[in-house]
């Protein structure tokens, strides 16, 4: 298992961090889409998380980064085509501390990666930020659960609620609660 300690960088240039859900021009109801999501508790971090990027590592592409939507630590995108992905960066800012980028190592990744062979719902896990000298790490946490996060997604994103994802998410929650 590769160490997940990441690099913490205070960004000089704004704009790098700006990333809402980026679908690369794909439709939310495209049947080849997958929903990929996760959660990071940033209570001990210099900033909250306002953006996250997921990197497509296979097949390799010139523009590998997919933006996500972020809500209170929950990050998600519902546009990913089949391939292999990893959580690449988190972004955040605060008035006093400025703009931060939290970069995860390109190598390894374990649970924060996903191999998507067929369309579906993929959970990257729930984590808590932990400072490690000038770097950082994330530790798995049991709460919030996958079902709780999916319910939150369904309750707070009207676009998801009005898409093909609503039924798929409800079915997934039902399976998780069995």
């Amino acid at each position, binding site marked *: 298992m590769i160490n997940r300690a990441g690099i913490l960088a205070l*960004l*000089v240039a704004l704009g790098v961090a700006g990333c809402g859900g980026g679908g690369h021009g794909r439709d939310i109801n495209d049947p080849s889409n997958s929903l990929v999501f996760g959660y990071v508790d940033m209570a001990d971090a210099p900033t909250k998380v306002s953006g996250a990027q997921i990197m497509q*590592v*296979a097949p390799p592409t*010139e523009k590998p980064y997919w933006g996500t939507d972020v809500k209170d630590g929950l990050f998600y995108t519902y546009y990913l085509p089949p391939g*292999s992905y*990893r959580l690449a960066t988190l972004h955040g800012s605060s008035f006093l501390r400025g703009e931060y980028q939290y970069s995860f190592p390109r*190598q390894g990744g374990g649970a924060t*990666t996903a191999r998507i062979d067929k369309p579906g719902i993929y959970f990257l896990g729930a984590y808590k930020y932990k400072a490690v000298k000038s770097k950082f790490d994330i530790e798995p946490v049991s709460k919030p659960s996958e079902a709780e996060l999916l319910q939150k997604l369904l309750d707070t994103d009207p676009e998801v609620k009005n898409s093909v994802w609503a039924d798929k998410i409800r079915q997934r929650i039902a399976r998780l609660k069995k």
Partner: protein
Amino acid sequence: MTGRLVAIAALALAACAPAPRAPLNALSELGSDEVVLVGKVELVPALAKHEQKIRGNVVGNFENRMVLVMDEKLRPLPEDLRLADYAGRIEALMGSTFFVRSKAQPAYVLGGVVFLDMGGNSQQKAYFPGGFQVAAKPGERAVYIGTLRYHRDEFFEVQRVTVVDEYKQASAEFEAKFGKGQTLRRALLTRVK
């Protein structure tokens, strides 16, 4: 500010790092206490287009290369490599036979590093395990150490490491480069327990 420092550190490696083991073009260039190391590094699968991104004013050539970090003493590959750790490295163009000059004495491959993203806001590297002995001896002129082959997945997790004997091919390249009548001793890398 930290982001900028990260970028500068990446450039500094290329500009300020101690010298690598130099490529050799003629055996006559060898000093009396030197040997030419002949070998190869391979990634399986090889780097695909877009898997490596080298941008901006990076001094040195890192494209499709693995830096083999070497030392005269066996030690773990440091998690955070300092510039001094790169002294005497082998900058191996992956998939091609290298011919580099080295002291005619045992040395160790501590590990390998491939720079995956350089010149942007962050520097991304992949590390490859080492712990191999190079069994060069005083008095000899040329040693074949084999092909160090790393099998990996798309996340650069290393799945298997093998040392492959491709002596016949390497010997032909050695002869073409340095002429006939030179002895290339086969001494494949060995894993040190």
